[in-house]
């Protein structure tokens, strides 16, 4: 039972961390290597919220807004000139990540920051004591996933975004303002990344480089998901399970690289990953 809960919550955390990257990759076909920096921005929003003495949950909307606003600036000034050079966009966003990391260091110092727990203690699930917060993370993943899917399926913006994902030329020809769709998508993706940063604070130490460790895993999952939300959920469950099982029964070190290796192998066999496999 503990194992199942571990798998479920690990998958949920991976999903929360990766979904912002997925949104951007799906619509813009750009890999945002500053994703880790946005996770960090979100975590520092939690730090600021705590310093100001507000309710720690308030960090969630704050991070979404701050992350989205900064994402808008990044799209306008850094991403937009590089749409035709996707590999260069990886590099430029990586450089942007360095800049953000250093700015945070200048502002807050390089030391680990402590944030108040959003929720502490354990609850008993079917006879097993389990961290309450990890269950919250599971719920958060479900809420974010459903909200995201509802946006994509139910709103005008989601419709336009899906059209751009499937066939950007046609979308343009039908009169969709694709530049605007890209901008808003990037803002939402960046906002989701910052949101994920807040949700990570009880699980990981907060310092200026905390995002980098999560970036690669998220990147691999998004590559395998190939822009599809459902495929991302499947990838998170399968790879999360592999990570937990290998860590538990073989070695934690192997577990930590399971996602990267599995993703590389899956992509070698099927370049589209889990999307329509």
């Amino acid at each position: 039972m503990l194992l199942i809960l571990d798998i479920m919550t690990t998958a949920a955390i991976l999903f929360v961390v990766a979904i912002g990257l997925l949104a951007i990759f799906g619509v813009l076909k750009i890999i945002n290597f500053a994703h880790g920096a946005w996770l960090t921005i979100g975590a520092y929003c939690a730090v600021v919220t705590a310093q100001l003495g507000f309710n720690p949950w308030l960090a969630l909307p704050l991070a979404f807004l701050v992350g989205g606003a900064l994402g808008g600036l990044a799209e306008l000034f850094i991403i937009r000139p590089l749409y035709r050079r996707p590999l260069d966009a990886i590099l430029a966003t990586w450089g942007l990540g360095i800049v953000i990391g250093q700015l945070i260091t200048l502002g807050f110092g390089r030391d680990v920051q402590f944030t108040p727990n959003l929720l502490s203690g354990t609850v008993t699930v079917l006879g097993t004591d389990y961290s309450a917060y990890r269950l919250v993370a599971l719920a958060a993943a479900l809420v974010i996933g459903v909200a995201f899917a509802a946006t994509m399926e139910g709103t005008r913006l989601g419709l336009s975004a899906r059209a751009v994902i499937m066939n950007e030329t046609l979308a343009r020809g039908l009169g969709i303002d694709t530049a605007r769709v890209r901008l808003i998508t990037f803002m939402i993706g960046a906002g989701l990344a910052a949101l994920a940063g807040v949700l990570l604070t009880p699980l990981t130490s907060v310092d200026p480089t905390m995002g980098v460790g999560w970036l690669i895993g998220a990147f691999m999952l998004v590559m395998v998901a190939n822009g599809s939300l459902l495929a991302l959920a499947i990838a998170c469950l399968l790879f999360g399970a592999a990570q937990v099982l290998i860590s538990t029964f073989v070695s934690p070190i192997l577990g930590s690289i399971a996602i990267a290796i599995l993703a590389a192998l899956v992509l070698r066999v099927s370049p589209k990953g889990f999307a329509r496999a």
Partner: protein
Amino acid sequence: MTEAARRLEPGMGGELELRDVVSGYGAISVVKGVSLHVGPGEIVALLGKNGMGKTTTLKTILGMIGLRGGAISVDSVSVVGLAPSKLAALGVGYAPQEQPLFQDMSIRDNLRLAIASDRQLPAALESVFGYFPFLKDRLAQHAGTLSGGEQKMLILARALMLRPRLLLIDEITEGLQPSVIDKIASVLLNERKKSGVTILLVEQNLDFALKVADRWAVLKLGQIDDEGPAEPNERERVLRHLSV
């Protein structure tokens, strides 16, 4: 619909004017100085063999390919430099030829994409159901599951969704059965009668073009090679431009 109702707003009839238009891809100019006038409510067929610049001409009008020379105006307003989204807002509808549908989207979503706001959706849907009743019961179905002919009708229905004043249609008859081609011809003629829409029709199907259009023009190597009225006795003359 009376003759008076046809021209609801005089001077807003989708008149299209191309003057010495040059455009192309990369180092290549495909359209090399095309001048063409389509009057309000007129249907003109742009004919010609493959690679002669017909589709490029349409995409240039839509702003999907940059104009390298010349001028384009709709209802005497220059549309040069306008993004495709602005053209749609001006009432220019487009039925593309290559990858014309979102195959993995529902029919309903494909139709929705043609209009800017969901508030117009019910009325717009009703108007295209009048032409293509089969769409009504199959709105939730993916576009990719339709037959070839049904897909073509969906493409046309989508272009009609925004009640265009100018309609640009790219080889809508390609690979279709004669019965479907007849259906499409009657829809176009009906819509023109009803709304006074102006239509530029890129075609390879000569018989269809002569049936629907008022005038024809043949594009050869990026220039208008020949033009004339769309009358049955013009068939031989046009065919010489198109066949082996």
